[in-house]
């Protein structure tokens, strides 16, 4: 029996020490009518069989082909050294660092993570990570409501639709209202008039469709009304784009997958939240602080725990118990491996490839949306419906096109993303596939909805 070391002698010895006759005597408290029901589970597999079974499943999945998918997850370069270091057994199989003296590995690397996220965002205080970008946005909204004691949040429609759905789920039970700011034809957010009943304005940059927003103006509009600006940001883009601290954001949140976590069909990666000094006491999630030990040595420890559920219980800032430590560690090691130059190179490579792709598509007569201020992703209007097009392209060996939801009112379309890993051959493959399905030479021949 795998993973359970007990021999029959062990079991006998243990039972004797305990003073019972059989293992079932230890289950006397369980009502007989519910004990040992038959369980219809598949027969156990040994290692060889299991891996073959998983290989069989994996063979049905499209991997390692030209990929132009974004929507919050992208395939970027991850140096080999990153997973080798982050996935050492001591990091993988450690628990939460409550006994700090024997957990300096986890604690120090988390302190490094907090520092790096603070540097990227330009805000002083980062927590030790959260589940994902979407739930981090929801928690940021709750923070703003606590801080301002107002009961409405305003959010741009260009914030990822799934993020807005999560926001809705978290705010519904507390009767907090959500006002949605609609987009301009440029597919960016107009600077809204923020009412003084609004706790926070939430804007994503680059937005869900890929385009850059006027964040300094957003900050000004929010602050003029006494509201917070919550900036939902792409942490890799921050290697080249102006950082939230520079334009007055109060909270920077987002998803960290692009910083060095494999795509894994959507998780686990991690969310991040970085705030101004004024918001420290409202910040949910774990925090690692620096201190000294009894010998005066610098060391690290979980701190300000009284905000958290295990102490504050029903009055905690959030019910959040864990963080996404191991995923955040992958990002920490990755950022250290790449350094500021490597990260900038990756970001600039992404921008160049995305713009090269857009230009190639325009030349080939595809209906690329006119806005040219995008980071990694942009909109392609299509004849076929987005989901259908995506399937047709997959059949032709290309993973491309996140369907643009109806709420954006552009008709059928997809967003296409490129990264520094995108090659000329990849782009040719996409063009060939698009040509094959009749999506090229569209402009000028037909009115596109």
């Amino acid at each position, binding site marked *: 029996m795998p993973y359970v070391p007990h021999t029959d002698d062990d079991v006998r010895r243990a039972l004797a020490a305990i003073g019972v006759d059989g293992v079932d005597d230890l289950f006397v408290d369980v009502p007989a009518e519910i004990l040992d029901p038959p369980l219809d589970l598949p027969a156990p597999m040994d290692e060889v069989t299991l891996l073959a079974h998983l290989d069989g499943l994996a063979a049905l999945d499209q991997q390692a082909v030209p990929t132009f998918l974004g929507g919050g997850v992208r395939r970027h370069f991850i140096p080999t050294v990153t997973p080798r270091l982050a996935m050492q057994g001591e990091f993988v199989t450690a628990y939460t660092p409550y006994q700090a003296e024997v957990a300096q590995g986890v604690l120090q690397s988390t302190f490094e993570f907090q520092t790096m996220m603070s540097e990227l965002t330009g805000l002083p205080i980062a927590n030790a990570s959260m589940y994902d970008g979407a739930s981090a946005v929801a928690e940021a909204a709750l923070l703003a409501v606590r801080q301002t004691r107002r009961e409405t949040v305003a959010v741009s429609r260009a914030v990822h639709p799934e993020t807005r759905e999560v926001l809705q789920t978290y705010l519904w039970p507390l009767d907090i209202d959500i006002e949605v700011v609609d987009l301009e034809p440029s597919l960016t957010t107009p600077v809204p008039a923020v009412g003084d009943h609004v706790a926070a304005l939430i804007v994503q940059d680059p937005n869900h469709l890929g385009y850059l927003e006027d964040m300094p103006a957003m900050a000004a509009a929010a602050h003029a009304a006494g509201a917070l600006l919550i900036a939902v940001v792409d942490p890799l883009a921050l290697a080249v784009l102006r950082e939230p601290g520079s334009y007055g954001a109060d909270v920077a949140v987002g998803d960290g997958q692009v910083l060095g976590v494999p795509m894994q069909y959507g998780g686990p990666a991690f969310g991040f939240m970085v705030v101004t000094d004024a918001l420290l*006491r409202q910040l949910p999630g774990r925090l690692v602080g620096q201190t000294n030990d009894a010998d005066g040595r610098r060391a690290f420890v979980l701190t*300000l*725990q*009284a905000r958290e559920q295990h*102490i*504050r219980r029903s*009055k905690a800032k959030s019910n959040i118990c864990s963080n996404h430590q191991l995923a955040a560690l992958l990002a920490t090691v990755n950022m250290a491996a790449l350094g500021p130059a490597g990260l900038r190179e990756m970001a600039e490579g992404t921008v160049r490839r995305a713009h090269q792709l857009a230009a190639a598509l325009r030349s080939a007569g595809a209906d690329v949306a006119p806005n040219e201020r995008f980071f990694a992703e942009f909109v392609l209007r299509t004849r076929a419906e987005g989901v259908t097009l995506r399937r047709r392209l997959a059949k032709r060996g290309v993973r491309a096109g996140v369907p643009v939801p109806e709420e954006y009112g552009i008709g059928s379309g997809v967003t296409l993303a490129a990264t520094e890993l995108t090659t000329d051959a990849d782009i040719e493959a996409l063009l060939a596939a698009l040509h094959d399905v009749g999506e090229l030479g569209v402009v000028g021949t037909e009115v596109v909805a």
Partner: protein
Amino acid sequence: MKIPEELRFAASHEWATEPSDGIVTVGITDFAQDQLGDVVFVELPDVGRTLAAGEAAAVVESVKTASDIYAPLAGEVVEVNGALLEAPEAINTDAYGEGWLFRLRVADADAWDGMLDPDAYAAVAEEG
């Protein structure tokens, strides 16, 4: 365990001074600060807030715990000890002096007599 004679106490370990012009000063007892350990942060009520007797008014946080502090008498908050925001340790070192939390204009000055006297509180603290 210091229990000053001139104060009155609540079973939840708050103390209050005798009303003077309708104003009482409120804090937590020496016993309470000892139980809490090193105080690291204090959340004080807003000036102007009206509190009912027994209503949660403030929070005192130590490294390992956070305790609600309850208004021992009904009244309106007229002053808070802002110095505690920079130096919360005053609650540990001088619970009855520099460690005061807030001042109330009490609705009913006679209610102070109904609080626990030092002997009665000593009994409570011993059980605790």
